[in-house]
């Protein structure tokens, strides 16, 4: 009986997750054209898709963009999310309600968020330039476009980090905090010596999840810049999409997707380990 219950989720995982991943790996070693797309066995070309990608300057730009995008998202989503979680932990009227309200941002479709931020960042009619009194070309200047899409994605992802961290923060034993406070520890010391160690496992989990979610970001950037200008806001998922669907280089697209997969896989391993760690605690 146990085996039946085990077999169902295993079959689910193998068919719906294992197969696409393996299929993508297979494609990245094949010469896939429109003609060979419906077939399973296509000309085997070894690592040529990878060497072609690694031989192009744009690949490194995309990797660097991905690094900045994901890094920015992790740092700011965690910092802002944790600050908000701590803030809403102070009990004031409507704290819980307002915390819930924050999740609205996370529930909106990413394409809508992208469109709204495209308007906010518009040069002439945009709200951000109006407020700052500036005349910046946020989305059409290669030096700011990546930061603009990163900002939009941080706004999008922060509520999710906040909710996860809120749960962790509210689980910190109150007695410990009270005891520390009686011993004369101020709020900052209480945070550093009690709250932070107590939530470290959750923090690691949220960092892993944020990395995984940002590595998959597509819609927000697609709506705002389509990866431009001059690839300056193109990250791995957009790059893979473009190779496959604009240029019909399916093998190259699969290879680019595998770069992303390897990174996400490593992070996922760390995440799974951190959950195990949490249980032992």
């Amino acid at each position: 009986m146990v085996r039946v219950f085990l077999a169902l989720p295993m079959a689910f995982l193998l068919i719906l997750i294992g197969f696409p991943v393996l299929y993508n790996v297979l494609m990245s070693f094949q010469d896939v054209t429109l003609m060979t797309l419906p077939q399973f066995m296509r000309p085997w070309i070894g690592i040529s898709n990878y060497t072609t990608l690694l031989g192009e300057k744009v690949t490194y730009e995309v990797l660097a963009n991905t690094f900045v995008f994901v890094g920015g998202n992790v740092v700011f989503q965690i910092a802002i999310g944790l600050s908000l979680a701590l803030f809403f932990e102070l009990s004031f009227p409507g704290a819980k309600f307002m915390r819930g309200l924050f999740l609205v941002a996370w529930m909106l479709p990413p394409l809508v968020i992208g469109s709204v931020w495209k308007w906010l960042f518009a040069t002439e009619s945009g709200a951000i330039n109006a407020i700052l009194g500036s005349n910046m070309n946020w989305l059409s200047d290669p030096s700011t476009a990546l930061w603009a899409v990163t900002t939009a994605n941080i706004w999008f992802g922060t509520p999710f980090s906040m909710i996860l961290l809120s749960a962790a923060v509210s689980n910190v034993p109150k007695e410990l905090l009270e005891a520390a406070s009686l011993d004369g520890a101020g709020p900052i010391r209480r945070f550093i010596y009690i709250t932070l160690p107590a939530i470290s496992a959750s923090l690691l989990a949220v960092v892993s999840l944020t990395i995984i979610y940002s590595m998959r970001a597509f819609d927000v950037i697609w709506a705002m810049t389509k990866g431009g200008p001059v690839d300056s806001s193109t990250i791995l998922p957009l790059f893979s999409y473009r190779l496959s669907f604009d240029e019909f280089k399916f093998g190259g697209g699969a290879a680019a997707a595998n770069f992303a997969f390897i990174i996400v896989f490593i992070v996922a391993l760390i995440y799974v380990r951190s959950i195990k760690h949490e249980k032992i605690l």
Partner: protein
Amino acid sequence: MKRLLVAAVAATAIASASVAAFAETKLDVWHVINIDKDMVHDGIKSFNEIDQNVQAEERIVPFAQLEPELLKAIATGDVPDAVMLASNSVPAFVVGNALMDLTEMVAGSDKVNGEDYHPGPWNSAQWDGKVYAVPRAANTLALYYNKDLLDEKGISVESLGTWDGLISAAEALTVPGERFGLAFSAIATEEGTFQFLPWLWQAGADIDTLDTPEAASALQVWVDLVKNGHSSKDVLTMRQFEGTSTFMAENAALVISGPWELPRIEKDAKFNWGVRTLPVKDGVNIEASALGDYNWVIPTGAKDPGASFKFIEYMTSEDVVKNAWDSGRLSARADIDVLVNQWPDAFATFNEQMKSARQRGPDPKYGEKSRVIQKAIQQAMTEELTVEAALTEAAAAIAKIK
């Protein structure tokens, strides 16, 4: 026994009746048109009234999603029965063996005749001497102007007929911080290439001669318009739809756009507007614009090609095509007089422009080459590279695409 016989007859009758009800062929039709007034909607409706046994079911796929969706369908082998494909994409799909060869069906058809079509659209339906598609309509780019603003500045519509005239008009019409002279789209998608090619052709260059002074002069115009503040730098991320919106909001006095925007402009533009043909380069005088719109195709592996072709025959027949102008589309067929119920001046302008509209390609690698052009445009307009350097790089990249 008799009772049994009656029962058997009755059962057979019911069975055959239900067979008839279920015998209908369902045609899975994909297209991208979400404008209510477009002929495609009424066309499908009236097609379904002809024969209850053949019913077309439309699925509207957003423009940017159509080709990825079709590729997914091809990869899984479960393809739609008829698809409206961007005319410039036909060769790539043909070379990929993804489209059915319609040559024999067209030869045996009394409804689809190559001679009836304008040469541009008909060429876009063929590859390597065979017919793979039937053009559904045609469109092209022209120049919309805000008549009130032109009058205010004393600029004549005729003067917009040359590059120099247009550029100086764009300068005169610009009010810093309030309004730009000219809006267009230089976005890093096919829309950007579609908008750039007319300039490239007007200068006397083409996709395979990007490293020439002629090509540089075309890109230089775009770079200067933005650098001098006569066009917004946001053209780099603006779709044609958004560029037209700035025109309607009077944030731009002129816009280069297509006839498909007429319904929206008429509804939302609160000023006198007009449309004229694109300018020519001074001293070169080559008229050119880019040919757009879609072709009907049948993907390889469609379950009933005969029924699909009947559908396409109907959708390209006079009954349907005569309504093309309702949503600002021109007929791809020369033998059909489109009903001009509205915008007669614009109709004349776009018809005139159509004479010099060129097709993109045909080239199975057009998509890849288009990407290279988009990159060069963006590199030059963000001043990451000079116009010459960007185009030299692009020419080298295009020479490598085989």
